[in-house]
């Protein structure tokens, strides 16, 4: 690393100008990024992370402006660049990778054209040379079969492949700085792990500086050397990854770490601690520390009277925290689980039983093609859920977990097999034909906070309507009961008048939970209820679900792709792959060897916000096979790192009962799996 930083922010002040006047989102931010260095910026949404990224390339739009300080890129102030200099900088020196790869790719151009365009335009390379460069770059981002890849259009690629192409496009001009804004947020864990590895490797090889923006502390640990924690537009703590994670000095950093479910955490031992309140609006900036209103260590007067400077942490060069109490805070201790978690109870009566459940989607035969192969979304699912327990269903996107939820809820019907809810057969009963009592029994919480509530209806109406339909509550009483339910989900009752556009994401999800509770259901199916929320909000929603479930003895079917959340919340876990359950058991059993090879790969891919817990990882190669031509043997055989031979491809694997209730569907015997997996500790085991 040279002395001259690639990027330096010197009291940069950024504002948006709105109808209401100037909104100062970044009051004065300073940091430097050296050549070849990777720095992560983390914080909840609304903290100004993306604004910083956009300001560096002066991409703030008409409303945004740099109103003070300097942003120096390679020693030049970006505010003073002429349009042509700016173009040169954006084209050759800085590259950006955003969350949604489809938004960065042109859908009507082949991948090859888009890749070749960069060197042809900016370096005047000929078509031939540009093509060679593009092929080299594809090899670097580990896309096999580059020739055929060049001829494809973006929609013919998977999400992971698309993001690799975007990274290839970003790096093909050999930029000095790569800005990545939540580059893996939309990807599956196994794909995310592969992309993060790739970024780390490429940055080492090309010496590119990286500014990596993420809400996920775990991903930052995997890629970056340094980390900056942002809150309300200010850098509240900065230092090397090791410094900040071993000894976080700012209460906000501690809050972020404490509210994060990690693989070693469990609802029985180390409850999540959400950060109280929400990110303050940039419209009203308090006099003292911006975080004071949410801080548990706040000292009125000292913290709230004047602006807090960033103070170096004594005895820890390069580590700074913007907190007057930084030095006095007690030493921080990472919450690690102690030994083995308690086994899930298996006592209550069975409320939900699924046997041999199958769901086929038949594509409608078109005029010129008939009888395309049906899509097997669910392929023989067997599950049993008992009263009062939480069953988590995990798997990557496309594994059929949401289809399973829809069949349970009656939004889809099964093609074959049985689904029993409270002793009633409902597999082929759509929700419209289910009797009231059955509809009341099972309710659902959906994934997307922006579409779960009708934007035209107030929160109170949404809950009241559910009460009237499911419990036949008279109108006046329904309003009262709705306020009570708002209290149950810990929302102020006057929120009932508000429509969704005036609720935050977490509040919307709470209203949706209250709506699901209106019928006093026995089974709540929650389909990724926290995946669209910020970590601190996520923690409070998880706690709420946990509390409601415990106090009502309700059964929770929790669908998630996030193994950390599942580890924390579930009693039992079912791991799904391509429409089939490959492993099921109590949470303690599933998260400890022997694992199914797929579970093992999933676990090793989970980004862990702990620099010391980097185990050997398994990167799954190859794409997810299509659900139309299912392999005749094990569905996972094509990607399985522990494949033992032709038997995996040809013969359906047996279900092995490892211990009571713990089943693995694999050709490899349990003892052998245990031996293999403890020999190479491939995952941050919860018991270490």
């Amino acid at each position, binding site marked *: 690393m040279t002395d001259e930083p690639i990027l330096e922010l010197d009291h940069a002040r950024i504002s*948006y100008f709105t109808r209401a006047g100037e909104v100062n989102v970044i009051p004065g931010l300073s940091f430097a990024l050296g050549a070849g260095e990777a720095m992560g910026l983390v914080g909840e949404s609304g903290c100004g992370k993306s604004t910083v990224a956009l300001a560096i390339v002066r991409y703030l739009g008409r409303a945004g402006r740099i109103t003070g300080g300097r942003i120096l890129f390679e020693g030049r102030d970006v505010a003073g660049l002429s349009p042509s200099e700016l173009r040169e900088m954006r084209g050759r020196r800085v590259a950006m990778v955003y969350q949604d790869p489809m938004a960065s790719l042109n859908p009507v151009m082949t991948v090859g054209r888009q890749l070749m365009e960069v060197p042809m335009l900016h370096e005047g390379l000929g078509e031939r040379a540009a093509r060679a460069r593009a092929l080299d770059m594809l090899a670097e981002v580990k896309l096999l079969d580059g020739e055929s890849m060049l001829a494809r259009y973006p929609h013919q690629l998977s999400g992971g492949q698309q993001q690799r192409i975007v990274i290839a496009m970003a790096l093909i001009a050999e930029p000095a700085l790569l800005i990545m804004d939540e580059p893996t947020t939309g990807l599956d864990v196994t794909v995310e792990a592969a992309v993060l590895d790739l970024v780390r490797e490429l940055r080492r090889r090309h010496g590119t500086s990286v500014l990596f923006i993420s809400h996920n502390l775990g991903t930052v640990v995997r890629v970056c050397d340094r980390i900056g924690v942002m809150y309300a537009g200010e850098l509240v703590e900065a230092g090397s990854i090791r410094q900040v994670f071993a000894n976080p000095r700012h209460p906000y950093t501690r809050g972020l770490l404490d509210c994060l479910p990690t693989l070693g955490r469990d609802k029985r031992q180390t409850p999540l601690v959400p950060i109280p309140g929400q990110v303050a609006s940039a419209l009203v900036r308090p006099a003292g520390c911006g975080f004071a209103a949410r801080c548990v260590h706040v000292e009125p007067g000292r913290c709230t009277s004047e602006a807090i400077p960033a103070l170096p942490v004594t005895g820890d060069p390069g580590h700074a925290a913007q907190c007057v109490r930084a030095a006095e805070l007690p030493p921080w201790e990472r919450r690690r689980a102690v030994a083995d978690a308690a086994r899930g109870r298996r006592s209550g009566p069975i409320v939900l039983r699924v046997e041999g459940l199958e769901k086929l989607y038949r594509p409608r035969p078109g005029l010129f093609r008939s009888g395309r192969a049906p899509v097997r979304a669910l392929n023989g699912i067997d599950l049993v859920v008992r009263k009062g327990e939480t069953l988590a269903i995990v798997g990557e996107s496309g594994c059929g977990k949401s289809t399973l939820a829809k069949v349970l809820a009656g939004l889809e019907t099964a093609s074959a097999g049985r689904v029993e809810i409270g002793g009633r057969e409902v597999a082929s009963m759509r929700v419209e034909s289910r009797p009231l009592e059955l509809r009341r029994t099972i309710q659902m919480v959906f994934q997307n906070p922006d579409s779960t509530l*009708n934007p035209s209806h107030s929160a109170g109406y949404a809950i009241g309507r559910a009460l009237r339909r499911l419990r036949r509550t008279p109108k006046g009483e329904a309003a009262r009961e709705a306020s009570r339910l708002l209290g149950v989900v810990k929302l102020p009752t006057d929120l009932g008048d508000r429509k969704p556009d005036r609720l935050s994401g977490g509040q919307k999800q709470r209203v949706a939970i209250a709506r699901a509770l209106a019928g006093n259901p026995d089974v709540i199916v929650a389909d990724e209820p926290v995946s669209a929320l910020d970590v601190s909000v996520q923690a409070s929603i998880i706690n709420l679900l946990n509390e409601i479930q415990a106090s009502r003895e309700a059964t929770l079917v929790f669908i998630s792709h996030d193994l950390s959340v599942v580890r924390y919340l579930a009693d039992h876990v079912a791991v799904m792959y391509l429409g089939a359950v490959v492993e099921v058991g109590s949470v303690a059993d599933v998260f400890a060897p022997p694992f199914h090879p797929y579970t093992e790969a999933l676990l090793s891919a989970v980004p862990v916000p702990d620099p010391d817990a980097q185990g050997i990882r398994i990167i799954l190669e190859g794409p997810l096979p299509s659900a139309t031509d299912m392999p005749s043997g094990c569905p996972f055989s094509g990607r399985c790192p522990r494949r033992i031979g032709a038997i995996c491809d040809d013969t359906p694997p047996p279900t092995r009962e490892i211990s009571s209730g713990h089943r693995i569907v694999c050709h490899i015997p349990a003892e052998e799996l245990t031996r293999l997996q403890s020999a190479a500790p491939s995952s941050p085991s919860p018991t270490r």
Partner: protein
Amino acid sequence: MTIPATAESLPAVPERVPLGFARAWARRLGLVAESKPALIGAGIVLAWVLAAVLAPLIAPYPPNATSMAAVAHPTPSAAHWLGTDHLGRDLLSRILWGARTVLTVAPLAVLGAAFLGSLLGLAAGYYRGWIDLVIARACDIVLSFPVIILYMIILAHFGSSAFNIIAVLTLTKAPIIARIVRGLTIELREREYVAAAKMRGESPLYIMLAEILPNARGPLIVDMCLRTGYNVVIIGALGFLGIGLPPPDPDWGGMVKDTYGMMSVWPHMALFPCAAISSLVIGFNLLAVGLREIGLRD
């Protein structure tokens, strides 16, 4: 995390007093005032509405009163600001009175089309399958006719009256609205709140009217504004073809028809009614453009 590329996506102030009904409307009107096209369009339309409502009070002459003195000199004068037509009828008064018919017939026809079209579009988009097929094909058939010919046939058959014009405009415009609503419905029916409504056992009618339609209203209102403007044009054209409202009541299109033969001598007789039609159409178009702008911003 989304990129706050515009100021509107900044976090709103969380602690706002809940808006009352009246204040919510005041806020909406405030939004209209912020879009220049919407403001100008609303101004023009409102001026015409006022003119129509107040025509009996502000029109200087009865609409069908003739003035022998003016026949000889029909050009604009102090007595007749916009002049008179070939029969000596005051143009300003006739245009003001004419606004009454246009501003009754055009919006009523649009309301009718919106009502019918919304029901058809909701049913087609919500149920899909054969219902969708039947409705979509029926709409295609209606839309495939040359519209003016269709009006001429129908109006020639049933006679021209304000009611018949409204009925015909309703029938011919409903398919267009049905298509728009169908498209929106297909998208909105996949929303999670619709699934939630199904899970509490709501009827399809409730889901269509209470869950889907209110969220389709933005594009629908914009389209209704545009469609009202088009209706003004069609009513003018029908009047010009002589199958508009029966004479002698003033009708802008009919006024042009009666006088365009004298265009080379007294162009004002045709030009002023034409200007009236144009300004009203432009007003509705600007309002539609502005409302769309506001809708996009929200």
